């Protein structure tokens, strides 16, 4: 099967530091691929390289088999790759609807949209509400509520909903549960499973081994700037995974 998103021989250097050292990467259609690695292993650089936030010095990225050259996350976004950043990238003082459509607002048809540049708030609010309902987040009553009045889990939910609303091909989730409590994490994990059941492939970056082992179909173990191995969570334990990523244990050969 052809990977939907593929990186080959990716290299990224920051001065004398090599963050990515001839690294490969494969995301298969419909799967949840977890990316784990110790701090400084280069996993966030890898994700940035495939999502356009960083331009690799060498190597190639393919989306659905076609070579792509992203210059910014916006390029990647236009190709259907959505990223939910750890910081969420939302404007706290603006409303849920404003945030979901930030940078891709919908204008009213005809004179009011073309000449007066008026936004079509009703349509945007309806789409935002529909998306949140679809993802089971419609305990949020007021779509015009400022994001800063939401709890951490709700904010994460809105960010994921934004990605799901526009991410037609790949969704990247960077540490989606890192800032959340136990219950809120559970909600977000359910949300991610809900996304998967829709057939959207997901890249999950996380330090939380229980969450990784619960969600992932495959686990990409990153170490010293490259892919050490890809393991099936059913065949290994969490301690094995941690041992691989810290180098305490030899990696299995079949990567």
């Amino acid at each position, binding site marked *: 099967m052809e990977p939907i998103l593929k990186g080959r021989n990716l290299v990224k250097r920051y001065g004398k530091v090599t963050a990515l050292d001839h690294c490969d990467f494969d995301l298969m259609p419909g799967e949840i691929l977890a990316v784990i690695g110790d701090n400084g292993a280069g996993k966030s650089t890898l994700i940035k390289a495939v999502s356009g936030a960083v331009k690799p010095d060498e190597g190639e990225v393919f989306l659905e088999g076609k070579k792509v050259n992203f210059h910014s*996350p*916006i390029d990647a*976004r236009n190709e259907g790759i959505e*990223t939910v*950043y750890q*910081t*969420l*990238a*939302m*404007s*706290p*003082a*603006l409303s849920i609807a*404003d*945030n979901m459509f*930030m*940078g*891709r*607002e919908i*204008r009213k048809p005809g004179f009011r949209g073309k000449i*007066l*540049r*008026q*936004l079509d708030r009703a349509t945007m609010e309806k789409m935002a509400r529909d998306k949140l309902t679809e993802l089971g*987040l419609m*305990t*949020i*009553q007021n779509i015009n509520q*400022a994001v*800063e*009045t*939401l*709890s951490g*889990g*709700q904010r994460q*939910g809105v960010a994921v909903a934004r990605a799901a609303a526009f991410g037609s091909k790949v969704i990247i989730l960077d540490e989606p549960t890192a800032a959340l409590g*136990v*219950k*809120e994490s*559970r*909600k977000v994990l359910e949300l991610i499973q809900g996304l998967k059941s829709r057939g959207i492939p997901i890249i999950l970056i996380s330090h939380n081994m*229980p969450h990784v*082992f*619960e969600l992932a179909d495959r686990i990409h173990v990153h170490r010293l700037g490259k892919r050490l191995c890809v393991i099936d*969570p*059913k065949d290994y*334990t*969490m301690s094995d995974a941690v041992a691989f990523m810290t180098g305490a244990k030899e990696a299995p050969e079949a990567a």
Partner: protein
Amino acid sequence: MSNTQNFETSDSGGANQVAEFEQNNSLVARIQHALHETPSLVPMVVLFASIAIFGMLLGGKFFSPFALTLILQQVAIVGIVGAAQSLVILTAGIDLSVGAIMVLSSVIMGQFTFRYGMPVELAVLCGLAIGSGVGFINGWLIAYIKLPPFIVTLGMWQIALATNFLYSANETIRAQDIAKNAPLLHFFGEKIKIGGAIFTFGVIFMVVLVLFLAYVLRQTAWGRHVYAVGDDPEAAELSGVNVKRTLISVYMLAGLICAFAGWAMIGRIGSVSPTSGQLANIESITAVVIGGISLFGGRGSIVGSLFGALIVGVFTLGLRLLGADAQWTFLLIGALIIAAVAVDQWIRKVSV
């Protein structure tokens, strides 16, 4: 999955409404919420309360169409410059060069007409273009060279003001000459009388400008981007907002509005004087802050800054009519500034 410890099962007994909203319905919370949604409520209440109080103390002397529209005329320049300042402060910046841009533009309009014999329409266009140009330089330095707005506009304040003095050779163009040869420069000083009420074109321009900007900020993508950039520029960039272009456009528009203020100032004071408008910086920032726009960016409405300018105008005229020492005005305005920022801090605490 089989080796996952089921540590979360112990949570299943607990309440399970994480993603739901608890509505805190206490009065204080509701006030805080209302202010969060409409930050210009406070200045509006203060404005109407102060009009009512001065009206009661002074009666018809204050509560007349003449006196009330006089306030509008007195705040017109600050109101217009305050609109420019609001845009900049919404992006979490500050523009200390507004007053200097205003004076420079008015001097250009006057000198181009009288020194070079340019048609007055063209001279006005040149003034407006130079105001926008100075704003563009501010915006470019802030967006691309990443200099702090405070520093850039502090420098530009000195540069524009010095240019103004050097170029004009400290020379004032007299009102009679303008009235005779270039009445267009007095355009914003023209009056419409309705009963005792007097509206200058400058006042009408101020109100129309604020309403126009309120529409743009609320109803267009550009307006939403201005707020997003002020709120969190990194988040805005990642969401697909062109932060640099937004910043430059804001400072340019602010420069253009200041040039209009310079034109309106000729109408207000009659002459073109390179020493006029020296307090516009501080007065515009005062109007914006009292108007409930957060100095930290991303919060507040431009209508609030108009209310802020009007509050200052009401206090100034009201206290003068009461025969109080002018220092009382400054004292009260000072207290209002601090109170306004305290309210802003409180409003921003709604985040859970």
